[in-house]
């Protein structure tokens, strides 16, 4: 356990009327890109804030880079960079002034600052915007500036709360390229996201639902560990199909994914025949019915369904 950069044990955080974090435990290894994945209200922001030392938990333990977050939140702050969900930089300061401010706060040497800022700004294609007020940047550029400010010192752990929310695809790709390069240098990245396609880019993910941990593993292993399989039906009558098949034998859940319907079933090969027979019997037209590899989204929906059916004690 000593080699883990983030250790979370039985963490609990209550807000009036709601338990935001419910006995949460997980570890993150050095150089890992770890995703905290879940819908709104799952407790993603709360766990990020606790790890950043800006919100004390009610119970449990957490260490970041071997520093006790609960006992010594100020100590943690020298070792991390935290990017809150809401843009946290000064809109009335320029790109350069924001960078200099955070460099000063983290005690970065002046010569290092210049070299590092130039390198980081170049990496995210922002070199020519140094004199622009942060408030005049686009959403994607704001997030990239946030990352530049977060990386102006060398954090052991980078905490990003929904960093690519509302960011255009190009900026997103640059953003992820920077994260992979950081992880390659040994920086641990913990980022939260509600986008399941983004979760697939992480080395490992923790699925959160109502403050509880549902799964914690690599996206591939999670998919393979999944019991059962997914049948995809493409049809223009998706709603009618859902109504007709939701209660069929062996079907545990039905989700609309794009223009297709994903049915979570116990055994795809066996059920495809029954299901197509049923659709034909009900005279519902469909273009295609095939077995597919489950996506994180399927996995998530199924996990949440199980979790809701058997709430933890």
């Amino acid at each position: 356990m000593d080699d883990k950069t983030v250790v979370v044990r039985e963490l609990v955080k209550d807000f009036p009327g709601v338990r935001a974090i419910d006995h949460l435990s997980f570890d993150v290894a050095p150089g890992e890109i770890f995703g905290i994945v879940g819908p709104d209200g799952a407790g993603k922001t709360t766990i990020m804030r606790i790890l950043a030392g800006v919100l004390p938990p009610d119970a449990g333990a957490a260490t970041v880079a071997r520093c006790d977050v609960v006992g010594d939140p100020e100590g943690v702050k020298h070792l991390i960079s935290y990017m809150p969900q809401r843009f946290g930089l000064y809109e009335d300061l320029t790109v350069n002034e924001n960078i200099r401010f955070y460099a000063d706060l983290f005690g970065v040497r002046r010569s290092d600052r210049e070299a590092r800022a130039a390198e980081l700004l170049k990496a995210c294609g922002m070199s020519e915007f140094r004199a622009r007020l942060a408030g005049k940047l686009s959403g994607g550029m704001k997030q990239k500036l946030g990352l530049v400010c977060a990386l102006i010192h060398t954090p052991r752990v980078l905490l990003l709360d929904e960093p690519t929310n509302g960011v255009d695809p190009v900026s997103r790709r640059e953003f992820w390229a920077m994260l992979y390069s950081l992880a390659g240098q040994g920086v641990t990245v913990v980022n939260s996201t509600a986008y399941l396609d983004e979760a697939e880019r992480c080395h490992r993910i923790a699925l959160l639902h109502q403050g509880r941990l549902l799964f914690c593993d690599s996206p591939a292993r999670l998919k393979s560990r999944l019991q059962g399989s997914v049948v995809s039906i493409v049809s223009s009558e998706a709603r009618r199909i859902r109504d007709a098949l939701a209660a069929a034998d062996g079907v545990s859940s039905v989700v609309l994914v794009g223009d297709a319907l994903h049915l979570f079933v116990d055994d795809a090969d066996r059920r495809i025949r029954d299901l197509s027979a049923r659709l034909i019997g009900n005279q519902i037209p469909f273009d295609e019915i095939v077995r597919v590899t489950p996506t994180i989204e399927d996995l998530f929906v199924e996990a949440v369904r199980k979790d809701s059916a058997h709430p933890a004690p």
Partner: protein
Amino acid sequence: MSLRRLLAVSRKEVFQVLRDFRSLLIVLLMPLMLMTVLGYGINLDTRHIRVFAFDREGSPASQDLLKRFESSEYFDLVATVTDYRALAAALDDGRCQLAIVIPHDFSARLHDGRPVNVQALVDGSDANTAELAIGYAQGVLGAYGATVQADYLRKSNAPTVNPVLSVEVRTWFNEDLESKNFIVPGVAAIVMAVIGVLLTSLTIAREWERGTMEQLISTPVTALEIVIGKLLPYFALGMLDTAVCAAIAVWWFEVPFRGSLATLAVGSGIYLTAILGLGFWISVVTKNQLAASQIGLVATFLPSFLLSGFTFPIEQMPLGVQPFTYVIAARYYIVILKSVFLRGSGLGALAGPLIALVAYALIMVFLAKRSFHKSLA
């Protein structure tokens, strides 16, 4: 405590103030505006009281008396009327505040050395002005009476009698008893309180509202570095405004300045720290710019106006109210300002109010620091 982080916070704050139109307006225009409006608006000197006269005699003697009213700077003889009804009408609609009626046998009685009653009717709806008008009128009539008496005695060849007791009044510090000389320094204290609190009350609340606080408190910067780093630029601006207020007082309102600039600077610096600390504390507690600026205004403007001894002497306040004056920083600063301007007092003579302000400033900065946590909880 890291000087580099502290200065980084100060630098950032300076950029923000310079780019914030509202803050600049407060810093640059507010002192000019408040000093002129309040400096001119509050004038406790009652001069040019409007007088109507009903001279029932019209003799040289009665004219002589009226001339004395005319030549006094306290009175303006607006009109002479010929009946009581006109006099009553003038008092009714406020064309005059004082009406003088001279009896028809005025000069005859004076000549015979008999007592004369001159009637004065006063508009008592403004008690303060009425009392002053009565006092000044008695002064004019008394002086006239004394000359007449002296004349009479001289004419009747009686031996000159000097009054047994007379008071030789000499006013120190404010020789002409001009109210502006103590009002204007008091206004400066109020102006600084309002500006200081308004500026700082926004600073922490703004960070919470714009969402920049969450990221700021996730860095190694300490609470004390944030407090001091943020107060420094406002301190500089506040001292600039103090200088502007003092300059307006001396060169525009011509208030005498007899003390030393050093004493003024020390007193103002301590007072400003107290005020900035108060504004900062309000900002920390409310976390909301609108609430902070309104509470700040309520906490400084009216109390500094009413409870500091600026408008009403503290000793004359009801006993139940007096204890509250001790928590008004302006109370101590006004004493310092008046003394430095008019008496030329040095630091030694002002030890009492200075120590009180130092304690006040320390408590405010302590409260601000204690209420500010690097935490979202």
